[in-house]
């Protein structure tokens, strides 16, 4: 699961997590959303964060991506601190990331293929013709034909939009891919298709994956390791196959979807 990395000095082998988060705190006004998160994600690992709506799962991912800035704590990528890093450093770091947004977040003024090729053309300055070829290649990888590439995102169904968003997230072959509720709002069959595509694409690119979801079927399928977020803290984490025998009342309630238990759902959105 965790690959060993050789330090540049050539001496002893040390295992550096791809992502290492320590004491991450974030609040909005008086509302504390993340209350000291500690979690690691090894190279090539697929980590799934589960938790109810409004528990701060999206905020957690946005802090790692640098879209939000934590109040305190440390976020290391490949051992390098990213909290408070320079603008140039952040831009360089973004090349390592890919992200699948919950609502797909496709650019509706652009064609589907331009959406997929966007990071290559605008972010990396690749020439359009080459980026176009790669875009169609990635669309094929998520099971979409060339004719879809010429459509606008608004012409696609929700499941198709998610596929395009997945193709966009993997187009630049990032080292870390984030999935924000990848199966929410999809029918069970399309959800399974997306789960399979996520596993296939992450494996093909050889990326580390961090997903957030409240869909347990999805979490079990795509995760190597699962962590449960509740009231801004990780209350349990462990291998995906141990989630049914965790002996943790929070996990037990969430996995079985019981209204009664230690988890009380948040009224207000984060």
């Amino acid at each position: 699961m965790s690959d060993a990395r050789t330090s540049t000095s050539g001496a002893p082998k040390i295992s550096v997590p791809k992502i290492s988060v320590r004491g991450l705190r974030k609040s909005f006004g008086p509302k504390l959303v993340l209350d000291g998160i500690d979690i690691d994600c090894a190279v090539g690992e697929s980590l799934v964060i589960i938790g109810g709506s409004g528990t701060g799962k999206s905020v957690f991912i946005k802090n790692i991506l640098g879209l939000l800035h934590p109040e305190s704590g440390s976020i290391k990528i490949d051992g390098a601190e990213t909290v408070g890093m320079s603008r140039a450093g952040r831009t360089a770091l973004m090349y390592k990331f890919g992200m699948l947004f919950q609502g797909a977040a496709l650019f509706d003024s652009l064609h589907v293929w331009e959406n997929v090729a966007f990071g290559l053309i605008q972010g990396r300055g690749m020439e359009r013709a080459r980026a176009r070829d790669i875009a169609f290649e990635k669309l094929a990888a998520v099971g979409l034909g060339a004719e879809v590439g010429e459509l606008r995102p608004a012409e696609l169904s929700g499941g198709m939009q998610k596929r395009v968003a997945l193709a966009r997230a993997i187009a630049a072959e990032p080292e870390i891919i984030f999935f924000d509720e990848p199966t929410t709002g999809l029918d069970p069959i399309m959800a399974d298709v997306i789960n399979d595509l996520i596993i296939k694409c992450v494996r093909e690119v050889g990326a580390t994956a961090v997903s957030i979801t409240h869909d347990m079927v999805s979490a079990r399928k795509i995760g190597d390791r699962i962590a449960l977020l509740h009231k801004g803290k990780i209350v349990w984490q462990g291998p995906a196959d141990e989630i049914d025998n965790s002996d943790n009342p929070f996990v037990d309630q969430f996995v079985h979807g019981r209204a009664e238990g230690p988890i009380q759902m948040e009224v207000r959105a984060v």
Partner: protein
Amino acid sequence: MTIFLARVGAAFLGFLAATGRLTGFALKGLVGIFSPPFYPRLILRQIVYMGYYSLPVVGLTALFTGMVLALQSYTGFSRFNAESAIATVVVLSVTRELGPVIAGLMVAGRVGAAMAAEIGTMRVTDQIDALTTLSTDPYRYLVLPRLLAGLITMPLLVVVADIIGVFGGYLVSTYKLGFNVESYLVSTAQHLETSDVVSGLVKAGVFGFIVALMGCYHGYQSRGGAEGVGQATTYAVVSASILILVTDYLLTAALFGT
């Protein structure tokens, strides 16, 4: 009483914070428009949208403004036997003042609102965050092309508005009020100085920047779905219109030293 003071204080602090945010946003734009990377395709698209497609509405407004100006001046000036000044009044008012202001207000309603709605929708549907994750600076990609387009397009639009506005005055004066065509044209050209037109074009550039700035800023700051986007659109038009009128006064005072 304490609660009242606390509320006043909170509102004032909120106002200061918003002013600070807007100033930062504007300064970033002023610095950014002179440094690469530029997005020529996006700038061109915005120029076409802001300029070419605004021509009918700006042209019509300018035409009727010039016409009504001639008519109003005539009814007023005829009391003092000063009808001969109408051509000069029309051309100076249109080039110095009405061309840029009317065009600015119309473009604020047509383009500023659209900018706020488009960027606001992108904000609430995570498209702006998506830009960041695709290694693209959303400010540079979305805001700067619009600011530049505003700065470039408005003076061009105002040149057209000036010509059509003066033509409107000419139509009313010669066809309705019975002025001699030749003497009207001579009086129009006689008192018009380059500085009159240039001052109007400087204003137009500033107004174009204001319209784009307000549209982008309110869109960028919008939160909370459809309601937030609707609010952003309203704020964009109202704040741009007020700022245009205030800036117009300040620029007039600065340019003409009065």
